[in-house]
């Protein structure tokens, strides 16, 4: 809990900064673990229910661990009219999960956002911070191949090491 303590300290235990505190905690842990929320609740003297209501209201927060690779599909208007729904559908099919979920092997988390503001590249998919513009179901399939191959070789290597 040292890391949360530091974040709380940085914000001088100011309850009105709870959203920023949760944002930083999420950056630190990649999601908001229950123990962390409980710790924040105790140390800010804020009811846990209030913290949960904030953590569930804002889209940026996740209460579940997120996968190693983070896939974001932009569903802005420009992306929508240029075929984003098809691209999303293909990714969902491929990973066997719906947007907002993480694959069972914890490899991929899939999320949608309302607009990344890079509409000239519509439709856009971002994987681990890398932008893939003018995406199509066909192109995205190939890109996923790359990531999934990388993952299988990684796991194989890990197994060999063991």
């Amino acid at each position, binding site marked *: 809990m040292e890391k949360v303590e530091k974040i709380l300290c940085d914000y001088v235990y100011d*309850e*009105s*900064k*709870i*959203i*920023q505190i*949760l*944002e930083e905690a999420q950056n630190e842990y990649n999601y908001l673990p229950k123990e962390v929320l409980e710790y924040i609740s105790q140390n800010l003297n804020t009811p846990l229910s209030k913290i949960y*209501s*904030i953590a569930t*209201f*804002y*889209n*940026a*927060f996740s209460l579940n661990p997120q996968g190693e690779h983070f896939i974001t599909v932009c*569903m*802005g*208007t*420009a*992306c*929508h*009219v*240029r*075929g984003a729904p*098809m691209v999303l*559908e*293909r990714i969902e*099919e491929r990973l066997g999960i719906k947007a907002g979920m993480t694959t069972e092997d914890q490899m991929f988390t899939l999320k949608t*956002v*309302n*607009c*990344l*503001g*890079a*509409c*000239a*590249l*519509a439709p*856009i998919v971002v994987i681990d911070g890398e*932008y893939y*513009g003018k995406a*199509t*179901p*066909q192109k995205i*399939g190939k890109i996923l191949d790359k990531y999934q191959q990388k993952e299988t070789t990684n796991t194989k290597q890990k197994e060999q090491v063991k």
Partner: protein
Amino acid sequence: MKEYRLHTLICAGTGCVACGALDVKEELEKEIVKQGLEDEVKVVTTGCQGFCERGPIVIVQPGDIFYQRVSKEDIPHLVEEHLLKGRPVKSLMYVPGPEKPPIPTMMDIGFFKHQRLLVLKNRGRLDPENIEEYIGFDGYRGLEKALAEMTPEEIIKEIKDSGLRGRGGAGFPTGLKWELCRKSPDEIKYIVCNGDEGDPGAFMDRSILEADPHAVIEGMIIGGKAIGAHKGFIYVRNEYPLAVKRLKIALSQAEEYGLLGKDILGTGFDFPIEVIQGAGAFVCGEETALLKSVEGKVGRPRPRPPYPTEKGLWGKPTNINNVETWANVPAIILRSAEWFSSIGTEKSKGTKIFSLVGKINNTGLVEVPMGITLREIVFDIGGGIADDEEFKGVQLGGPSGGILTEEHLDTSVDYESLTEAGAIMGSGGMVVLSENDCMVDTARYFLNFIQEESCGKCTPCRVGSKRMLEILDRIVEGRAEEDDLKKLKILAEKVKKYSLCGLGQTAPNPVLTTLRYFEDEYKAHIEEKRCPAKVCKNLFKYVITDRCTGCTFCVRNCPTDAIEGEVGNKHKIIQEDCTKCGTCLEVCPVDAVEAVDNE
């Protein structure tokens, strides 16, 4: 300051960065050193140039030479030819159409020629992370004037006389809002900058914050002085990390220069500004919800009155304006209300920034004088519809807005004319739609957005939008019944009338305007179970025509193995297995795949 023979300006807006602008910059710097030009050529990264369609963009000054779609590989040639030998490189210039000659200079390109830059005047000419460059272009002179020569009343009068109206959507007169807030009796007052920019498909505010953060800061300090506020907040949406970073740099530089914080410019006026990053909720763009979020609470709107100018942050009078509104302020103070009000129409003064997206050739960010026509924006600046498709409509104002059609192309772009035509000015989202876009699907898209973003506090919005969405789902899926259209209209009116905040009150607009201009399209879906634009999946199918050469390309690429066929024989789509993903259409080398109505 050191003098350079040439400046190369690299656009580092989000769009260009996503296309590899930073790699281009790195290569450029390396190559300049390699050629021994580092004392003659300066490399500057700038804010968004707006012509995102053509990124990454590099401009060479003097000469205003505009290079587009520049890749890392182009750099050695560019450096050697232009920077060393002084011969501009034609192959990297913009070409307006087939068989047209390339256009070397930026201001001769249609996309830029018809724009009028007031708010975005610094885009692409200065480094947003360096306050000295902003100061070099008259930066903070408006603030100096306001603090040294004007009383708060005079500042407010100047803003009122300028005719500036809010750019966040509603178009409320800015000077009047300031006056109301100034007159609210309280010792403590706040200023807020609304940078939540929730309209999906719009990025005006992000671009201002990234390209010219000091303009917003300067505007807010002037506003703070006029209103008698003691602190400012800038609320930026979660998805804009670069804007937050640039703002934080700008704020600390402004403080270092004595332009922000304590005793500004030695006048005894104290005004600090804090940046707050949102956490992803569209409704937080609504002012009362935004204030709750700044206070660290769940961002749900409350009824108005009382307006924020009376009861805002922590119950204190608070003046909230949009990013673009604030960015207009310094120039008005520096150059006069008279100058500002000479631009635009009788009731809509100045310029407006739009993000021009969708089925348009020149996707990008444009700033135009009020009173320009939609036709000029779509065709002269935007270069017309992409892929030679037919123009069908333009959607303004995002989920709160409406669609205008061919017959409105000559409408003047000002608050009143757009509202009268059935749309709104909105915050500046402009989505161009072509014959291949389905209006029912578009309306459903916005309603789905609203339904997901509804905060749930009031029933008309929470439940009403859900019921409306269910009807639209039935229509696009071909399950609708005759009276669904009537039900949809009734619901739309009720949601509009009884919702608590602007989110719900405007939510039915996309449905109502598409119904007004494209009722036929709704009827085709309901009565004939047909989607004329071939967008709604249940209502059309793909077939392979006789053009098929039997190359098996589609067979091998189909993700659901829904195509059968052997080399040299015409292929066939097995309809039961087809998910209509369109991959076959995309990969077919002879355009043999067609979308047709179901029998």
